[in-house]
């Protein structure tokens, strides 16, 4: 299902792709309210969906008190996200289950790379003055190059909210394009910080500009805004992805981050991807969940599915 596909080459800015698009907030909210009520998974299917959610997680630590030790622990969890007895009971030992990636600050990249050596799990690094992004552009580009040199295979950049809020789309476009260039082979995920963009219509425009600038993924949030990933925002970004793909035949990935904590969140968001973009877009090369605590809840739910007993967090390895 995850055969490789060409990267988004980007293109010159074309404002006509988003100029006339209006997103009606109330309608988006009504649709969002139904994402979790129109579909459901239970029993074996629920367990499978949760296993799959693990495969899509960018296991993340982005805190001021991160240390090499903390990052190593996270990486160990990424390598073995589910207790071996549960893996055995589910009959998925051959799956080689890991999280999709580990996501850290640039200075933590070398520690993560070392800890994940041989696992095949990529290291993602935030960059460009995360989370506010208000650093001079040359410094932000230098930060990207640093992270790439240290071994990051994915770079989560933040956009300059000022440009989106004031409609300076060409500056936004050119800046992201420059970042994409600095990424070289590393994939670029553009964090739109949607909680700070004010309107869904703006979210749509910023999504389209990021894709036109060459983003491989678009991502909702840094996790540091007061409003993180919400379903109406997701519907809007996914709609932009669909429209961009329809026009360019280029696949674009989607990453919600921030505020996704429960196993229920995981299945609802996977269902959202299935309904709005289809099965292909549920795969880890096109869908990531940026989360730190969600994995713990997923483990407990899987244990419940296997044993029929409600599980304790302390029975699962800490991340």
């Amino acid at each position, binding site marked *: 299902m995850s055969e490789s596909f060409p990267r988004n080459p980007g293109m010159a800015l074309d404002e006509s792709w988003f100029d006339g698009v209006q*997103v009606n*907030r109330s*309608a988006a909210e009504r*649709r969002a309210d139904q994402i979790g*009520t129109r*579909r459901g998974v239970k*029993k074996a299917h629920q367990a*499978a969906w949760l296993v*799959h959610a693990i495969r899509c997680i960018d296991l993340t630590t982005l805190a001021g008190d991160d240390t090499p030790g903390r990052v190593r622990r996270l990486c160990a969890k990424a390598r073995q996200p589910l207790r071996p007895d549960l893996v055995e009971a589910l009959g*998925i030992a051959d799956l080689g289950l890991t999280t999709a990636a580990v996501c850290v600050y640039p200075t933590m990249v070398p520690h993560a790379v070392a800890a994940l050596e041989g696992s095949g799990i990529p290291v993602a690094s935030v960059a460009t003055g995360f989370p506010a992004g208000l650093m001079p552009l040359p410094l932000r580009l230098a930060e990207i190059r640093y992270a790439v040199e240290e071994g990051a295979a994915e770079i989560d950049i933040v956009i300059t909210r000022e440009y989106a809020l004031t409609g300076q789309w060409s500056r936004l476009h050119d800046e992201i394009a420059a970042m994409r260039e600095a990424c070289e082979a590393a994939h670029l995920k553009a964090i739109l910080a949607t909680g700070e963009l004010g309107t869904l219509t703006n979210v749509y425009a910023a999504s389209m500009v990021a894709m036109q600038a060459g983003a491989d993924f678009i991502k909702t949030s840094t996790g540091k805004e007061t409003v993180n990933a919400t379903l109406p925002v997701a519907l809007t970004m996914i709609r932009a992805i669909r429209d961009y793909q329809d026009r360019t035949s280029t696949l674009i990935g989607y990453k919600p981050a921030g505020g996704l904590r429960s196993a229920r969140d995981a299945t609802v968001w996977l269902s959202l991807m299935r309904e709005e973009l289809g099965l292909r877009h549920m795969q880890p090369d096109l869908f990531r969940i940026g989360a730190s605590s969600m994995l713990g809840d997923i483990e407990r739910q899987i244990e419940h599915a296997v044993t029929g007993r409600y599980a304790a967090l302390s029975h699962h390895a800490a991340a």
Partner: protein
Amino acid sequence: MDITEILTTMEYGPNPESADDALAWLKDRQDWPGHFIAGAFHADPQETAMKVENPATHAVLATMPVASAATVDAAVAAARAALPGWRGLGPQGRARVLYALARHLQKRARFLAVLETLDNGKPIRESRDIDVPLAARHFYHHAGWAAAAEVEFPGRAGWGVCAQVIPWNFPLLMLSWKIAPALAAGNTVVLKPAEQTPLTALAFAEICREAGVPDGAVNIVFGAGDTGATLVAHKGVDKVAFTGSTEVGRAIRRSLAGSGKGLTLELGGKSPFIVCADADLEAAVEGVVDGIWFNGGQVCCAGSRLLVQEGIAERFYARLRDRLARLRIGDPLHKSTDIGAIVSGDQLARIRRLVAEGQAQGGTLHAADAALPETGHYHLPGFFTGAEPASTVAREEIFGPVAVAMTFRTPDEAVALANNTAYGLAASVWSENINTALDLAARVRAGVVWVNGTNLFDAAAPFGGMKESGFGREGGRAGLEAYLHPLADDPAPGPATEPVDFSTAPQGAGPAAEAVDRTLKLYVGGKQVRPDGGGSYAVTDGTGRSVALAARANRKDVRNAVEAAVKAAGWARMPAAGRAQVLYFLAENMDQRRADLAVSLTRAGLAEDAADREVGAAVDALIFAAGMADKLDGGLHSVGQPRMVAMTMREPWGVAGLVCDDRAPLSALIAGVGALLAAGNRVVAVPSARHALVAGDLMQLIATSDVPGGALNLLTGDPAELAPVLAAHDEVDALWLADPALRAAVETAAAGNLKPVMAGLPRSDPAGLARLLQGATQVKTIWVPYGA
């Protein structure tokens, strides 16, 4: 569990809601406990039985008895007997009962949702998330009205015994829409659920016992159309409320003609769903999902006619086809089902027939490409393109999950197409431009308009139709009013006058002494015109002496007058203050001609002092009505949806007929005309036949008072001849009738386009006028969600 396999397909897998509790409950009721009368279940020795089928499986769920006339009698008698006790409970006591019902519905929510889905075939998501919560909400809302009705509606009381007949598409919800306001207004109820879906009504009967509803306040009889017909026609019933097909609504209107019973009808629709080029297209696509693809399209207010602006039509259709591909059709108990079963084999056959007809007439059907379950009544959702306004599928209600799409070029054309239907229940308007959206909302003739939304409901917002979608509202203040008896409008009948002889041949009566030859004509389209038939009748002074020959209008004059009124649509568009100005001017001119008007009245037999009072009352009434023209305010409603303006506007009916009798010959005419005109209606009035002289005076005054031609037309003649013609005229939207003797004929004829008939002599005192003004408008509810 084979997790690896699931990981490759990522299917949702089975996720059924358990029906065990509901089926166990049904098992004990296979043979049905009986009809719910006076708080207990009663079998009916004469009754026949019908099988209740699960439309998704064809399994027989239970066997329902069909109430005979004797059972209907008993139920109506029980409701009547319970009335004093129910009223005696007082506002607080009644409120507590309604509140208890709301609570019990919530406590039994899951059970009721499953039962509804078993019986009706609708997806469990809908019964669980929409039907049952809205039903409970309705009882909560009306618990408040029960407590407040006496202070909010002083002097008004309930009708008495209400007969209520409901359809199968929202069985429990429609039951709540009927029973909650009826009880809140102090009525008692006999309800008949649809024969296809009686199960939640049976459960509700048991809940009534649990919740402590006094015996007889709610009675439920089961049966099919015959039982319903017996119930609504029952002499012991004071008010009838019906939701269902326009065809049955018409039959009920006819069967009740002249009975004096209250009547509200919520009937069919072919509601427009207008998508403008500047709409949020994805939102509109989801609107179709929540519209025609909701409840299998078996929704009277479903947006079944998609009117799409031409430039975006292909893109919109492509997105609809995409969306269709993602709908899941199947087991309604499955929690991931979007489209369940159609309620019955009959209904499925009807949908199939209409869809086949649509294809035969050249329409292209775009249907979901999905496999249907092997058993059960299922129909694929879809939509037609290439169907023209003349196609059957564009005009007839399919009542299934199939819409008809057409294009428009301009907002004007969108309005014209939207209104090109006999129905007027609901409309959806999709545009991100507030000017366009509100313009269309204002101009579409529908009782409910949703801007950038569809199928939004709340107990606080009135719901109901215009035109052949019926009359009366459910929900909110307007909905409660439908269950309150109007205060008596008829003053005591005056002294009998000699009957008018309408023969057009000379009668040889001697002239009154002061007779001066005077040419009386009709007033049509702003001009005095000769009657089409060229006939006249003698107006006498009450003692057999002829004082003038009056023009005798016939059906063609009615036709001409209505045509003139239809053309005078500018009157409705004129600002209310402008209409007030015109009416004030007319009142001023009448005031100057008081003496002449009084003389005309006395010449036709009215005593001098009575004539003076009549003129004074008429002038006062017109001034009052003029002053109220800009005070017919709508309202804003506290609905459950966040960030929502749910507003009601009071709109004129359109063209209104007014048929007077010889009582209060000038003041009743002017009160009626004044109220109707102030509200923006165009009027075709039949004045008192005896008082054609004063009508002639009025014609001169109207012509010199800036009343636009066609806004007010006066036809003298025989009310018994003219009233049924007006009642039967499809361009007349409402009719006011003074003479109770004509009521049966008029209400029968009015069934044609289902125009409401307001019976009673128009009263010219302020209280009477206030009610006339109220009745001169109909409520349009406009929902405008907002959010940056």
